[in-house]
Protein backbone atom coordinates (compact mmCIF):
# COMPACT_ATOMS: atom_id res chain seq x y z
CA UNK A 1 0.00 0.00 0.00
CA UNK A 2 1.23 3.40 -0.88
CA UNK A 3 1.77 5.69 2.06
CA UNK A 4 2.03 9.41 1.94
CA UNK A 5 3.44 11.83 4.44
CA UNK A 6 3.19 15.58 4.71
CA UNK A 7 6.50 17.36 4.56
CA UNK A 8 7.27 20.90 5.70
CA UNK A 9 10.18 22.77 4.25
CA UNK A 10 11.43 26.27 5.04
CA UNK A 11 11.00 28.63 2.17
CA UNK A 12 14.28 29.50 0.53
CA UNK A 13 13.69 33.18 1.03
CA UNK A 14 13.34 32.61 4.79
CA UNK A 15 16.73 30.95 4.97
CA UNK A 16 18.28 33.72 2.91
CA UNK A 17 16.76 36.53 4.95
CA UNK A 18 17.81 35.14 8.33
CA UNK A 19 20.93 37.27 8.65
CA UNK A 20 22.58 40.39 7.31
CA UNK A 21 22.23 39.03 3.76
CA UNK A 22 18.58 39.99 3.94
CA UNK A 23 19.75 43.46 2.92
CA UNK A 24 20.94 42.19 -0.44
CA UNK A 25 17.70 42.26 -2.37
CA UNK A 26 14.29 43.85 -2.21
CA UNK A 27 12.65 40.46 -2.23
CA UNK A 28 14.39 39.36 0.93
CA UNK A 29 13.98 42.74 2.57
CA UNK A 30 10.28 42.82 1.92
CA UNK A 31 9.90 39.24 3.14
CA UNK A 32 11.02 40.50 6.54
CA UNK A 33 9.42 43.92 6.63
CA UNK A 34 6.04 43.51 4.95
CA UNK A 35 4.33 41.62 7.81
CA UNK A 36 5.67 44.13 10.32
CA UNK A 37 4.73 47.15 8.21
CA UNK A 38 1.29 45.66 7.64
CA UNK A 39 0.65 45.66 11.39
CA UNK A 40 2.19 49.09 12.03
CA UNK A 41 0.45 50.86 9.16
CA UNK A 42 -2.78 49.02 9.82
CA UNK A 43 -2.81 50.17 13.43
CA UNK A 44 -1.85 53.73 12.50
CA UNK A 45 -4.59 54.25 9.93
CA UNK A 46 -7.33 52.71 12.07
CA UNK A 47 -8.33 56.03 13.72
CA UNK A 48 -8.46 57.70 10.27
CA UNK A 49 -10.70 55.03 8.77
CA UNK A 50 -13.11 54.64 11.65
CA UNK A 51 -15.46 57.59 11.78
CA UNK A 52 -18.04 56.78 14.44
CA UNK A 53 -17.25 58.04 17.93
CA UNK A 54 -18.28 54.72 19.42
CA UNK A 55 -15.85 52.62 17.40
CA UNK A 56 -13.04 55.12 17.92
CA UNK A 57 -13.46 54.49 21.62
CA UNK A 58 -13.38 50.74 20.95
CA UNK A 59 -9.99 51.13 19.23
CA UNK A 60 -8.58 52.75 22.36
CA UNK A 61 -9.99 49.97 24.52
CA UNK A 62 -8.44 47.39 22.16
CA UNK A 63 -5.07 49.04 22.75
CA UNK A 64 -5.51 49.00 26.53
CA UNK A 65 -6.31 45.30 26.42
CA UNK A 66 -3.40 44.77 24.04
CA UNK A 67 -1.06 46.27 26.63
CA UNK A 68 -2.41 43.89 29.26
CA UNK A 69 -2.19 40.91 26.92
CA UNK A 70 1.40 41.81 26.05
CA UNK A 71 2.31 42.01 29.71
CA UNK A 72 0.55 38.70 30.41
CA UNK A 73 2.33 36.98 27.53
CA UNK A 74 5.70 38.36 28.58
CA UNK A 75 5.26 37.27 32.20
CA UNK A 76 3.76 33.87 31.46
CA UNK A 77 5.81 32.71 28.51
CA UNK A 78 9.12 34.42 29.01
CA UNK A 79 9.44 34.44 32.80
CA UNK A 80 7.14 31.62 33.84
CA UNK A 81 4.87 33.70 36.07
CA UNK A 82 1.23 33.18 35.12
CA UNK A 83 -0.32 36.39 36.38
CA UNK A 84 -4.03 37.01 36.71
CA UNK A 85 -3.32 40.45 38.12
CA UNK A 86 -4.14 42.47 35.01
CA UNK A 87 -7.02 44.17 36.82
CA UNK A 88 -4.69 44.98 39.70
CA UNK A 89 -2.21 46.74 37.41
CA UNK A 90 -5.01 48.65 35.67
CA UNK A 91 -6.53 49.67 38.99
CA UNK A 92 -3.29 50.87 40.57
CA UNK A 93 -2.31 52.85 37.47
CA UNK A 94 -5.81 54.29 37.11
CA UNK A 95 -6.19 55.43 40.69
CA UNK A 96 -2.66 56.87 40.78
CA UNK A 97 -3.18 58.99 37.68
CA UNK A 98 -6.55 60.11 39.06
CA UNK A 99 -4.85 61.26 42.27
CA UNK A 100 -2.03 62.99 40.40
CA UNK A 101 -4.54 64.71 38.12
CA UNK A 102 -7.22 65.82 40.60
CA UNK A 103 -5.19 66.40 43.78
CA UNK A 104 -1.98 67.79 42.32
CA UNK A 105 -3.48 69.21 39.12
CA UNK A 106 -0.95 67.60 36.77
CA UNK A 107 -1.94 67.43 33.08
CA UNK A 108 -2.58 63.94 31.62
CA UNK A 109 0.69 63.84 29.67
CA UNK A 110 2.59 64.22 32.97
CA UNK A 111 0.38 62.18 35.25
CA UNK A 112 0.32 59.14 32.95
CA UNK A 113 4.10 58.57 32.94
CA UNK A 114 4.22 59.26 36.69
CA UNK A 115 1.41 56.77 37.32
CA UNK A 116 3.21 54.22 35.15
CA UNK A 117 6.48 54.47 37.05
CA UNK A 118 5.05 54.69 40.56
CA UNK A 119 2.35 52.13 39.77
CA UNK A 120 4.95 49.66 38.55
CA UNK A 121 6.99 50.14 41.72
CA UNK A 122 3.93 49.76 43.98
CA UNK A 123 2.73 46.63 42.16
CA UNK A 124 6.18 45.05 42.23
CA UNK A 125 6.68 45.74 45.93
CA UNK A 126 3.25 44.31 46.76
CA UNK A 127 3.89 41.22 44.62
CA UNK A 128 7.37 40.60 46.03
CA UNK A 129 6.16 38.16 48.72
CA UNK A 130 4.47 36.01 46.04
CA UNK A 131 7.50 35.70 43.76
CA UNK A 132 8.71 32.36 45.17
CA UNK A 133 5.34 30.88 44.15
CA UNK A 134 5.10 29.19 40.79
CA UNK A 135 2.51 28.19 38.25
CA UNK A 136 -1.10 28.06 39.35
CA UNK A 137 -0.31 29.24 42.89
CA UNK A 138 1.09 32.52 41.65
CA UNK A 139 -1.99 32.84 39.43
CA UNK A 140 -4.39 32.39 42.34
CA UNK A 141 -2.63 34.90 44.58
CA UNK A 142 -2.42 37.53 41.85
CA UNK A 143 -6.12 37.02 41.13
CA UNK A 144 -6.78 37.91 44.77
CA UNK A 145 -5.04 41.30 44.66
CA UNK A 146 -7.61 43.27 42.60
CA UNK A 147 -10.47 41.79 44.64
CA UNK A 148 -8.82 42.77 47.91
CA UNK A 149 -8.10 46.31 46.74
CA UNK A 150 -11.64 46.83 45.49
CA UNK A 151 -13.01 45.68 48.85
CA UNK A 152 -10.58 47.87 50.80
CA UNK A 153 -11.58 50.98 48.83
CA UNK A 154 -15.25 50.09 49.22
CA UNK A 155 -15.12 49.28 52.93
CA UNK A 156 -12.94 52.16 54.05
CA UNK A 157 -14.61 54.63 51.68
CA UNK A 158 -11.28 56.09 50.60
CA UNK A 159 -10.41 57.39 47.12
CA UNK A 160 -14.04 58.18 46.38
CA UNK A 161 -15.36 54.87 47.67
CA UNK A 162 -17.98 53.26 45.46
CA UNK A 163 -18.55 56.49 43.53
CA UNK A 164 -14.99 56.67 42.30
CA UNK A 165 -13.11 59.84 41.45
CA UNK A 166 -14.74 62.18 38.96
CA UNK A 167 -13.66 65.33 37.15
CA UNK A 168 -10.49 63.93 35.66
CA UNK A 169 -9.03 65.82 32.69
CA UNK A 170 -9.35 64.23 29.28
CA UNK A 171 -6.76 64.52 26.53
CA UNK A 172 -6.70 67.87 24.76
CA UNK A 173 -8.01 66.37 21.52
CA UNK A 174 -9.12 63.02 20.17
CA UNK A 175 -6.03 62.55 17.95
CA UNK A 176 -3.74 62.57 20.96
CA UNK A 177 -6.09 60.24 22.78
CA UNK A 178 -6.15 57.74 19.91
CA UNK A 179 -2.57 57.88 18.74
CA UNK A 180 -1.02 57.90 22.21
CA UNK A 181 -2.28 54.41 23.04
CA UNK A 182 -1.66 53.04 19.54
CA UNK A 183 1.94 54.26 19.43
CA UNK A 184 2.56 53.07 22.97
CA UNK A 185 1.31 49.58 22.06
CA UNK A 186 3.48 49.43 18.94
CA UNK A 187 6.58 50.71 20.76
CA UNK A 188 6.17 48.28 23.64
CA UNK A 189 5.42 45.39 21.28
CA UNK A 190 8.60 45.83 19.27
CA UNK A 191 10.57 46.84 22.36
CA UNK A 192 9.60 43.65 24.17
CA UNK A 193 10.41 41.55 21.11
CA UNK A 194 13.85 43.12 21.13
CA UNK A 195 14.22 42.63 24.88
CA UNK A 196 13.45 38.91 24.89
CA UNK A 197 16.16 38.33 22.30
CA UNK A 198 18.80 40.20 24.28
CA UNK A 199 20.97 38.37 26.80
CA UNK A 200 18.76 39.81 29.53
CA UNK A 201 15.72 38.25 27.87
CA UNK A 202 17.61 34.97 27.81
CA UNK A 203 17.92 35.18 31.60
CA UNK A 204 14.16 35.61 31.90
CA UNK A 205 13.65 32.53 29.76
CA UNK A 206 16.21 30.68 31.84
CA UNK A 207 14.27 31.52 35.02
CA UNK A 208 11.22 29.99 33.39
CA UNK A 209 13.08 26.96 32.06
CA UNK A 210 15.09 26.04 35.11
CA UNK A 211 15.33 28.35 38.09
CA UNK A 212 17.65 26.08 40.12
CA UNK A 213 20.28 26.23 37.39
CA UNK A 214 20.04 30.02 37.41
CA UNK A 215 20.71 30.03 41.15
CA UNK A 216 23.65 27.70 40.60
CA UNK A 217 24.94 30.23 38.08
CA UNK A 218 25.24 32.86 40.77
CA UNK A 219 22.19 34.97 40.02
CA UNK A 220 19.25 35.70 42.27
CA UNK A 221 16.06 34.49 40.64
CA UNK A 222 13.99 36.80 42.83
CA UNK A 223 15.72 39.86 41.37
CA UNK A 224 15.00 38.83 37.80
CA UNK A 225 11.42 37.83 38.56
CA UNK A 226 10.93 41.22 40.23
CA UNK A 227 12.40 42.97 37.20
CA UNK A 228 10.02 41.09 34.91
CA UNK A 229 7.07 41.95 37.14
CA UNK A 230 8.21 45.60 37.14
CA UNK A 231 8.18 45.69 33.34
CA UNK A 232 4.85 43.89 33.05
CA UNK A 233 3.09 45.83 35.78
CA UNK A 234 4.39 49.08 34.32
CA UNK A 235 2.67 48.21 31.06
CA UNK A 236 -0.54 47.40 32.91
CA UNK A 237 -0.42 50.64 34.90
CA UNK A 238 0.18 52.60 31.71
CA UNK A 239 -2.96 51.05 30.27
CA UNK A 240 -4.90 51.86 33.43
CA UNK A 241 -3.72 55.46 33.41
CA UNK A 242 -4.77 55.89 29.77
CA UNK A 243 -8.21 54.38 30.28
CA UNK A 244 -8.91 56.72 33.20
CA UNK A 245 -8.12 59.79 31.14
CA UNK A 246 -10.17 58.45 28.23
CA UNK A 247 -13.25 57.89 30.42
CA UNK A 248 -12.52 60.93 32.65
CA UNK A 249 -13.53 58.77 35.59
CA UNK A 250 -12.02 56.20 37.87
CA UNK A 251 -13.84 53.71 40.03
CA UNK A 252 -14.06 50.20 41.35
CA UNK A 253 -14.78 48.84 37.87
CA UNK A 254 -11.08 49.28 37.12
CA UNK A 255 -10.52 46.25 39.33
CA UNK A 256 -13.03 44.23 37.29
CA UNK A 257 -11.98 40.71 36.39
CA UNK A 258 -12.42 41.44 32.66
CA UNK A 259 -8.99 43.03 32.72
CA UNK A 260 -7.49 39.83 34.09
CA UNK A 261 -9.36 37.30 31.97
CA UNK A 262 -9.75 38.83 28.51
CA UNK A 263 -5.98 39.26 27.94
CA UNK A 264 -5.56 35.53 28.60
CA UNK A 265 -8.25 34.67 26.08
CA UNK A 266 -6.57 37.00 23.60
CA UNK A 267 -3.23 35.31 24.21
CA UNK A 268 -4.76 31.88 23.61
CA UNK A 269 -6.36 32.99 20.37
CA UNK A 270 -3.42 35.00 19.11
CA UNK A 271 -0.71 32.50 19.92
CA UNK A 272 1.09 32.20 23.23
CA UNK A 273 4.70 33.25 23.41
CA UNK A 274 4.71 35.27 20.19
CA UNK A 275 4.01 38.72 21.74
CA UNK A 276 2.39 39.81 18.44
CA UNK A 277 -0.27 37.17 18.84
CA UNK A 278 -1.86 38.65 21.98
CA UNK A 279 -2.14 42.05 20.27
CA UNK A 280 -3.87 40.43 17.30
CA UNK A 281 -6.04 38.47 19.71
CA UNK A 282 -7.23 41.73 21.29
CA UNK A 283 -7.85 43.24 17.85
CA UNK A 284 -10.21 40.33 17.19
CA UNK A 285 -11.78 39.66 20.57
CA UNK A 286 -12.61 43.16 21.80
CA UNK A 287 -14.53 44.27 18.68
CA UNK A 288 -16.34 40.91 18.59
CA UNK A 289 -17.38 41.40 22.18
CA UNK A 290 -18.72 44.86 21.24
CA UNK A 291 -20.61 43.49 18.21
CA UNK A 292 -22.20 40.83 20.37
CA UNK A 293 -23.67 43.44 22.67
CA UNK A 294 -26.83 43.39 20.53
CA UNK A 295 -27.56 39.90 21.75
CA UNK A 296 -27.81 41.07 25.34
CA UNK A 297 -27.13 38.33 27.83
CA UNK A 298 -26.65 35.75 25.08
CA UNK A 299 -23.42 37.61 24.33
CA UNK A 300 -21.44 35.45 26.72
CA UNK A 301 -22.72 32.29 25.03
CA UNK A 302 -21.56 33.35 21.56
CA UNK A 303 -18.34 34.64 23.00
CA UNK A 304 -17.66 31.30 24.67
CA UNK A 305 -18.47 29.38 21.49
CA UNK A 306 -15.90 31.44 19.58
CA UNK A 307 -13.32 30.86 22.29
CA UNK A 308 -13.97 27.13 22.49
CA UNK A 309 -13.81 26.90 18.70
CA UNK A 310 -10.39 28.50 18.70
CA UNK A 311 -9.13 26.29 21.51
CA UNK A 312 -10.36 23.11 19.85
CA UNK A 313 -9.42 23.83 16.23
CA UNK A 314 -6.50 26.25 16.47
CA UNK A 315 -5.10 25.75 19.95
CA UNK A 316 -1.67 26.91 18.82
CA UNK A 317 -3.04 30.36 18.08
CA UNK A 318 -3.39 32.45 14.95
CA UNK A 319 0.12 33.84 15.03
CA UNK A 320 1.91 30.50 15.40
CA UNK A 321 -0.23 29.08 12.61
CA UNK A 322 0.35 32.13 10.44
CA UNK A 323 4.10 32.14 11.00
CA UNK A 324 4.28 28.50 10.00
CA UNK A 325 2.35 29.10 6.81
CA UNK A 326 4.46 32.14 6.02
CA UNK A 327 7.85 30.54 6.63
CA UNK A 328 7.23 27.02 5.33
CA UNK A 329 5.47 25.28 2.52
CA UNK A 330 3.93 21.86 2.80
CA UNK A 331 3.72 19.05 0.31
CA UNK A 332 2.76 15.41 0.24
CA UNK A 333 5.52 12.94 -0.46
CA UNK A 334 5.53 9.21 -0.95
CA UNK A 335 7.11 7.23 1.84
Amino acid at each position, binding site marked *: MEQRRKERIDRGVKVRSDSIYALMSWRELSYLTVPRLLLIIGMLILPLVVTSMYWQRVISIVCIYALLALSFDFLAHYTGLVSLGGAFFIGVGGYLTAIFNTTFGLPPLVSIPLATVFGAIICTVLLLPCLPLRGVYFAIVTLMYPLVFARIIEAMDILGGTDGIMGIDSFSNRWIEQYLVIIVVLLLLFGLRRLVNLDLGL*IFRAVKD*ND*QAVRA*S*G*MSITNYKALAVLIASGMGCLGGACIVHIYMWTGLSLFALDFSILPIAATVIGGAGTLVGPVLGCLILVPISELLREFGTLRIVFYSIILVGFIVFRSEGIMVYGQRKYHQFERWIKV
Partner: protein
Amino acid sequence: MNKEPILQVRDVTKAFGGILALNRVSFDLYEGDILGIIGPNGSGKTTLVNSITGFIKLTSGKVMFRGKDITGRPAHKIADMGITRTFQIMRPYYSMLAYKNLVIPLFSPRAKRTGGWRGGGKLGDRDTVSIDILEEIGFERDSYVPYKLASTLPTGYLKRLELARCLALKPEMILCDEVFSGLSMSEIASMIPLIERLQMSGITLIMIEHRLRELFKVANRVMVLNFGEKLIEGLPEEVIADARVKEAYFGSEEAKEVMDHA
Protein backbone atom coordinates in the same frame (compact mmCIF):
# COMPACT_ATOMS: atom_id res chain seq x y z
CA MET B 1 50.47 20.14 55.20
CA ASN B 2 50.23 23.39 57.08
CA LYS B 3 48.31 25.55 54.65
CA GLU B 4 44.78 26.62 55.39
CA PRO B 5 42.05 24.34 54.00
CA ILE B 6 39.92 25.94 51.27
CA LEU B 7 36.76 24.33 52.61
CA GLN B 8 36.04 23.32 56.18
CA VAL B 9 32.88 21.40 56.95
CA ARG B 10 32.14 21.11 60.65
CA ASP B 11 29.48 18.90 62.26
CA VAL B 12 27.05 19.40 59.41
CA THR B 13 23.64 17.98 60.31
CA LYS B 14 20.49 17.96 58.24
CA ALA B 15 17.23 16.47 59.43
CA PHE B 16 14.23 15.92 57.18
CA GLY B 17 11.53 15.51 59.81
CA GLY B 18 12.76 12.68 61.99
CA ILE B 19 15.26 11.35 59.49
CA LEU B 20 18.85 12.43 59.84
CA ALA B 21 20.09 12.76 56.27
CA LEU B 22 23.42 14.04 57.53
CA ASN B 23 24.70 13.44 61.02
CA ARG B 24 27.67 15.54 62.22
CA VAL B 25 29.74 15.24 59.07
CA SER B 26 33.07 17.06 59.18
CA PHE B 27 35.96 17.24 56.76
CA ASP B 28 38.65 19.54 55.44
CA LEU B 29 39.47 20.11 51.80
CA TYR B 30 42.76 21.59 50.62
CA GLU B 31 43.20 23.68 47.52
CA GLY B 32 43.79 21.73 44.32
CA ASP B 33 42.67 18.41 45.75
CA ILE B 34 40.01 16.10 44.42
CA LEU B 35 37.85 14.62 47.15
CA GLY B 36 35.76 11.65 46.15
CA ILE B 37 32.61 11.00 48.15
CA ILE B 38 31.10 7.55 47.93
CA GLY B 39 28.35 5.76 49.77
CA PRO B 40 25.30 3.61 49.19
CA ASN B 41 22.08 5.12 47.88
CA GLY B 42 20.44 7.42 50.39
CA SER B 43 23.59 7.91 52.41
CA GLY B 44 23.38 11.70 52.14
CA LYS B 45 25.89 12.50 49.39
CA THR B 46 23.66 14.80 47.39
CA THR B 47 22.31 16.35 50.60
CA LEU B 48 25.90 17.20 51.49
CA VAL B 49 26.41 18.95 48.14
CA ASN B 50 23.10 20.76 48.55
CA SER B 51 24.02 21.97 52.01
CA ILE B 52 27.50 23.18 51.06
CA THR B 53 26.17 25.11 48.06
CA GLY B 54 23.26 26.62 49.98
CA PHE B 55 20.44 24.87 48.17
CA ILE B 56 19.10 23.61 51.48
CA LYS B 57 19.31 25.13 54.95
CA LEU B 58 21.33 23.20 57.51
CA THR B 59 19.81 22.01 60.78
CA SER B 60 23.11 22.63 62.52
CA GLY B 61 26.80 22.80 61.73
CA LYS B 62 29.10 25.12 59.89
CA VAL B 63 30.61 25.45 56.43
CA MET B 64 33.67 27.66 56.04
CA PHE B 65 35.13 28.72 52.69
CA ARG B 66 38.63 30.24 52.85
CA GLY B 67 38.07 30.89 56.55
CA LYS B 68 34.78 32.70 55.94
CA ASP B 69 31.57 31.30 57.35
CA ILE B 70 29.17 30.68 54.47
CA THR B 71 26.55 28.71 56.40
CA GLY B 72 23.02 29.75 55.53
CA ARG B 73 23.95 32.10 52.71
CA PRO B 74 21.65 31.97 49.68
CA ALA B 75 22.71 29.65 46.86
CA HIS B 76 23.41 32.43 44.37
CA LYS B 77 25.73 34.21 46.82
CA ILE B 78 27.70 31.01 47.37
CA ALA B 79 27.96 30.43 43.62
CA ASP B 80 29.10 34.04 43.33
CA MET B 81 32.01 33.24 45.69
CA GLY B 82 33.19 30.55 43.29
CA ILE B 83 31.68 27.38 44.74
CA THR B 84 29.80 25.88 41.82
CA ARG B 85 28.00 22.61 41.44
CA THR B 86 26.57 20.28 38.86
CA PHE B 87 23.24 18.56 39.28
CA GLN B 88 22.83 14.81 39.36
CA ILE B 89 19.71 15.15 37.25
CA MET B 90 20.97 17.45 34.55
CA ARG B 91 19.42 20.89 34.53
CA PRO B 92 20.13 22.48 31.18
CA TYR B 93 17.81 25.08 29.70
CA TYR B 94 16.10 22.66 27.36
CA SER B 95 14.40 25.29 25.20
CA MET B 96 17.68 26.95 24.25
CA LEU B 97 20.57 26.12 21.95
CA ALA B 98 23.52 24.46 23.68
CA TYR B 99 25.80 27.48 23.49
CA LYS B 100 23.04 29.85 24.62
CA ASN B 101 22.91 27.78 27.82
CA LEU B 102 26.27 29.26 28.74
CA VAL B 103 25.26 32.83 28.05
CA ILE B 104 23.25 32.68 31.27
CA PRO B 105 26.13 31.98 33.69
CA LEU B 106 28.24 34.43 31.68
CA PHE B 107 25.63 37.08 32.48
CA SER B 108 26.14 36.61 36.23
CA PRO B 109 27.98 39.21 38.32
CA ARG B 110 30.85 36.79 38.98
CA ALA B 111 31.46 36.16 35.27
CA LYS B 112 31.37 39.90 34.61
CA ARG B 113 33.99 40.38 37.33
CA THR B 114 36.28 37.55 36.32
CA GLY B 115 35.72 37.48 32.59
CA GLY B 116 34.58 33.87 32.59
CA TRP B 117 36.75 30.83 32.06
CA ARG B 118 40.35 31.82 31.23
CA GLY B 119 39.21 35.43 31.03
CA GLY B 120 41.52 38.15 32.20
CA GLY B 121 38.84 40.17 33.91
CA LYS B 122 37.19 41.44 30.78
CA LEU B 123 34.30 39.56 29.26
CA GLY B 124 34.09 39.55 25.50
CA ASP B 125 31.05 38.77 23.42
CA ARG B 126 29.13 36.19 25.41
CA ASP B 127 28.30 34.00 22.42
CA THR B 128 31.97 33.73 21.46
CA VAL B 129 33.11 33.05 25.01
CA SER B 130 30.50 30.33 25.45
CA ILE B 131 31.61 28.56 22.26
CA ASP B 132 35.19 28.72 23.57
CA ILE B 133 34.15 27.12 26.84
CA LEU B 134 32.19 24.43 25.03
CA GLU B 135 35.24 23.61 22.91
CA GLU B 136 37.35 23.37 26.05
CA ILE B 137 34.88 20.95 27.58
CA GLY B 138 34.72 18.70 24.54
CA PHE B 139 32.07 20.04 22.15
CA GLU B 140 33.52 20.08 18.66
CA ARG B 141 33.57 23.73 17.67
CA ASP B 142 33.08 23.28 13.96
CA SER B 143 30.39 20.64 14.27
CA TYR B 144 26.72 21.36 14.64
CA VAL B 145 26.64 20.17 18.26
CA PRO B 146 27.00 23.56 20.04
CA TYR B 147 24.18 24.92 17.87
CA LYS B 148 21.69 22.17 18.63
CA LEU B 149 18.79 22.54 21.04
CA ALA B 150 19.78 21.37 24.50
CA SER B 151 16.76 19.06 24.55
CA THR B 152 18.18 17.10 21.61
CA LEU B 153 21.63 16.54 23.10
CA PRO B 154 22.63 13.08 24.38
CA THR B 155 23.44 12.51 28.05
CA GLY B 156 27.19 12.71 27.55
CA TYR B 157 26.98 16.23 26.21
CA LEU B 158 24.48 17.30 28.86
CA LYS B 159 26.89 16.17 31.61
CA ARG B 160 29.59 18.22 29.94
CA LEU B 161 27.21 21.14 29.68
CA GLU B 162 26.71 20.94 33.45
CA LEU B 163 30.47 21.21 33.93
CA ALA B 164 30.64 24.00 31.36
CA ARG B 165 28.11 26.01 33.33
CA CYS B 166 30.42 25.80 36.34
CA LEU B 167 33.46 26.76 34.24
CA ALA B 168 31.71 29.84 32.89
CA LEU B 169 31.77 31.25 36.41
CA LYS B 170 35.55 30.76 36.64
CA PRO B 171 35.07 28.66 39.76
CA GLU B 172 37.43 27.96 42.63
CA MET B 173 35.57 24.79 43.52
CA ILE B 174 33.30 22.47 41.58
CA LEU B 175 31.06 19.99 43.34
CA CYS B 176 30.30 17.29 40.80
CA ASP B 177 27.23 15.26 41.58
CA GLU B 178 27.70 12.04 39.61
CA VAL B 179 29.13 13.37 36.37
CA PHE B 180 30.09 9.85 35.27
CA SER B 181 26.74 8.19 35.83
CA GLY B 182 24.81 7.25 32.72
CA LEU B 183 27.88 7.56 30.51
CA SER B 184 29.42 4.82 28.40
CA MET B 185 32.91 3.56 29.17
CA SER B 186 34.42 5.47 26.27
CA GLU B 187 32.65 8.66 27.31
CA ILE B 188 34.01 8.30 30.84
CA ALA B 189 37.46 7.63 29.44
CA SER B 190 37.29 10.95 27.64
CA MET B 191 35.98 12.75 30.74
CA ILE B 192 38.88 11.71 32.98
CA PRO B 193 41.53 13.82 31.21
CA LEU B 194 39.10 16.71 31.42
CA ILE B 195 38.79 16.32 35.20
CA GLU B 196 42.56 16.10 35.49
CA ARG B 197 42.93 19.23 33.39
CA LEU B 198 40.53 21.07 35.70
CA GLN B 199 42.58 19.99 38.70
CA MET B 200 45.79 21.17 37.05
CA SER B 201 44.28 24.57 36.39
CA GLY B 202 43.91 24.95 40.15
CA ILE B 203 40.24 24.08 40.67
CA THR B 204 39.36 22.10 43.78
CA LEU B 205 36.85 19.35 43.13
CA ILE B 206 34.45 17.27 45.14
CA MET B 207 33.21 14.30 43.17
CA ILE B 208 30.29 12.17 44.13
CA GLU B 209 30.44 8.92 42.23
CA HIS B 210 29.21 5.40 42.00
CA ARG B 211 31.86 4.55 39.42
CA LEU B 212 34.53 3.58 41.91
CA ARG B 213 37.23 2.43 39.54
CA GLU B 214 37.28 5.73 37.68
CA LEU B 215 36.90 7.76 40.84
CA PHE B 216 39.82 6.08 42.60
CA LYS B 217 41.93 6.89 39.53
CA VAL B 218 41.45 10.64 39.81
CA ALA B 219 40.71 11.31 43.49
CA ASN B 220 43.41 12.33 45.97
CA ARG B 221 41.26 11.52 48.96
CA VAL B 222 38.07 9.55 49.39
CA MET B 223 35.34 9.89 51.99
CA VAL B 224 32.70 7.27 52.64
CA LEU B 225 29.23 8.17 53.88
CA ASN B 226 26.78 5.65 55.30
CA PHE B 227 23.32 6.56 56.62
CA GLY B 228 24.35 10.20 56.86
CA GLU B 229 27.44 9.51 58.90
CA LYS B 230 31.03 9.72 57.87
CA LEU B 231 32.49 6.22 57.90
CA ILE B 232 36.06 6.89 56.95
CA GLU B 233 38.17 9.44 55.08
CA GLY B 234 41.61 8.84 53.67
CA LEU B 235 43.75 7.97 50.70
CA PRO B 236 42.02 5.80 48.08
CA GLU B 237 44.17 2.77 48.99
CA GLU B 238 43.30 3.07 52.67
CA VAL B 239 39.60 3.30 51.91
CA ILE B 240 39.66 0.27 49.64
CA ALA B 241 41.39 -1.75 52.31
CA ASP B 242 39.00 -0.79 55.09
CA ALA B 243 36.78 -3.64 56.22
CA ARG B 244 33.88 -1.44 57.33
CA VAL B 245 33.66 0.11 53.87
CA LYS B 246 33.52 -3.28 52.21
CA GLU B 247 30.71 -4.33 54.46
CA ALA B 248 28.67 -1.12 54.33
CA TYR B 249 29.07 -0.31 50.71
CA PHE B 250 30.25 -3.01 48.41
CA GLY B 251 28.50 -6.10 49.69
CA SER B 252 30.65 -9.16 50.11
CA GLU B 253 30.85 -11.01 46.76
CA GLU B 254 30.76 -8.12 44.35
CA ALA B 255 33.23 -6.18 46.43
CA LYS B 256 36.04 -8.55 45.71
CA GLU B 257 35.54 -8.12 41.99
CA VAL B 258 35.53 -4.34 42.14
CA MET B 259 38.53 -4.34 44.41
CA ASP B 260 40.48 -6.58 42.09
CA HIS B 261 39.90 -4.28 39.16
CA ALA B 262 40.65 -1.16 41.11
